[in-house]
């Protein structure tokens, strides 16, 4: 059962071949037996999951089931879960048990899905390798067969590794600069970052609020569509959430791709991309041509400035957001503070890890008197130039395709000594967040036995088109079905 998709599991439950309690038990047993080698979960909620599964079985027996009723999944440990620890991968929140649900959490609860636990992540979602988690690094299931401990990517590395290892069929994730797409690519799973504002950020612990967006991760595009059906929608509790009708994302999966206009941004096929990776991406584009799509080169001339703009805007917003962690109302507090300033400065020095502190300091610097115009305002202007590039590209084509990462999963420890080397991992994903458009990562081959992700970028609110394109590709390829040894 653990190799089946959400859609398949839902049908098995509906047919009565298996109960949710049995299914939940099977996945919990797998987590118990196997997660020691991956460390993809921070918290496993066994008792709650079994109780929820029992309720789901009763609902189904009473004829009150939805697609998700009784289907196991997991939440990235950034989504607040009422009564269940929510750590954001940080010592600062290691003891934090939220008294409320995030909107995304409440939506899955209402749909009857069974949450098995909370997945590991880079601390406060800052990282591209899952090595900055206070709860230890996550190991990618790919490469382990050769004895190599590779990163799963980040920051949603726990969600991606858990799905790749078949410990859950689906998991929530978030993406501020690539944190869904990059780990999905490195772990060979399918992930979607929706349009900014499509999914509520209420109860999703904030990193950079003008960029953060909750999204989906699963093996298939169809399962991503099922997840987005639950997650998307207007929420008055999130002031930047967009009030716009939500389509049924599964309804258009089967539409033919004939006439789809694909643009290949030439800046994303640069010399940063390894030839072997480029070959896989070009092969994937050829499959799309066979499906009736047309292909042309396009340009995103300001994309080269995306990392620079991001590393002003994201740290600046992080420095403001993370000022709430002061040791007073919740979370970590240092021992024996001698005065209020000592309470603040020691709580924050002891509670935050190295990368989080670096970003807070950079952000504070960029926002400080005398530097605001040169850094923050300048970065926001460049952000508009980057956005305009996408607006112009989508006048000519329906979707953009590119690699997700310049190379496949790297070995743990390889990029931890220099922050900037790690930042360059997101060179193809970051501009999407600055523009706020939706994008997916779809498994599209292997290099040296490691998964390669194809990035498909769409115009604002065109998630359905992306899911359709990914689903059709998955009907003619089986990269997404491959299993790590």
């Amino acid at each position, binding site marked *: 059962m653990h190799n089946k998709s959400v859609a398949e599991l839902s049908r098995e439950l509906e047919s009565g071949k298996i109960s949710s309690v049995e299914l939940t038990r099977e996945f919990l047993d797998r987590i118990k037996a196997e997660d020691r080698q991956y460390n993809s979960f921070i918290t496993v909620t066994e008792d709650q999951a079994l109780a929820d599964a029992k309720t789901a079985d009763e609902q189904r027996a009473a004829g009150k089931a939805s697609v998700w009723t009784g289907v196991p999944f997991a939440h990235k440990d950034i989504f607040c879960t009422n009564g269940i620890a929510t750590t954001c991968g940080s010592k600062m929140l290691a003891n934090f048990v939220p008294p409320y649900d995030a909107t995304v959490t409440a939506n899955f609860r209402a749909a009857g899905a069974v949450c098995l636990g909370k997945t590991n992540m880079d601390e406060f979602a800052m990282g591209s390798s899952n090595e900055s988690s206070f709860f230890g690094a996550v190991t990618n299931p790919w490469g382990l067969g050769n004895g190599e401990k590779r990163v799963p990517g980040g920051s949603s590395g726990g969600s991606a590794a858990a799905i790749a290892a078949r410990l859950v069929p689906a998991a929530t994730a978030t993406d501020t600069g690539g944190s869904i797409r990059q780990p999905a690519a490195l772990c060979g799973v399918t992930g979607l970052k929706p349009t900014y504002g499509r999914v509520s950020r209420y109860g999703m612990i904030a990193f950079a609020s003008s960029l953060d967006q909750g999204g989906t991760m699963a093996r298939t595009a169809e399962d991503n569509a099922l997840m987005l059906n639950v997650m998307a929608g207007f929420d008055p509790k999130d002031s930047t959430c967009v009030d716009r009708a939500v389509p049924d994302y599964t309804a258009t999966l089967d539409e033919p791709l004939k006439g789809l206009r694909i643009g290949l941004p030439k800046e994303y096929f640069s010399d940063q991309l390894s030839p072997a990776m480029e070959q896989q991406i070009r092969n994937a584009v050829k499959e799309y041509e066979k499906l009736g799509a047309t292909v042309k080169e396009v340009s995103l001339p300001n994309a080269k400035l995306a990392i620079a703009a991001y*590393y002003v805007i994201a740290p600046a917003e992080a420095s403001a957001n993370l000022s709430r962690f002061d040791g007073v109302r919740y979370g970590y507090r240092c021992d024996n503070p001698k005065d209020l300033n000592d309470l603040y400065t020691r709580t924050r020095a002891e509670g935050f890890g190295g990368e989080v502190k670096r970003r807070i300091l950079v952000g504070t610097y960029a926002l400080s008197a005398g530097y605001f115009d040169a850094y923050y305002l300048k970065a926001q202007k460049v952000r508009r130039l980057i956005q305009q590039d996408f607006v112009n590209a989508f006048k000519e084509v329906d979707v953009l395709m590119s690699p997700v990462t310049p190379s496949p999963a790297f070995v743990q420890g390889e990029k931890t000594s220099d922050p900037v080397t790690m930042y360059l991992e997101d060179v193809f994903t970051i501009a999407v967040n600055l523009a706020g458009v939706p994008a997916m990562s779809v498994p599209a081959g292997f290099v040296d036995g490691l998964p390669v992700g194809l990035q498909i970028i769409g115009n604002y609110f065109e998630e359905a088109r992306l899911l359709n394109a990914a689903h059709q590709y998955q009907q003619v390829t089986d990269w997404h079905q491959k299993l790590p040894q």
Partner: protein
Amino acid sequence: MTISREDIEKVAVLARIRLDEEQIPALENDLGNILSLVDQLSAADTDNVEPLAHPLDAVQRLRADKVTETNQREAFQAIAPATESGLYLVPRVIE
């Protein structure tokens, strides 16, 4: 682009993060590298470009000024490090 020891100490005070002496050389290096990366922005021509704060240029919604939430003080204070009589405790501020 370099950042001085004095700048780092000043920013750490603003950010309320205590730094130990031995952390500063590594931070000078790391923050200097990050600021060098960011320096690419200065080459961009942004004359007459409006800064972008929200990708869809949305503005804050307004709502009626009425109470919609219930008081959950007990639930919130149950997870606080130190409380007394419904108040959050911090070290003495006024001698």
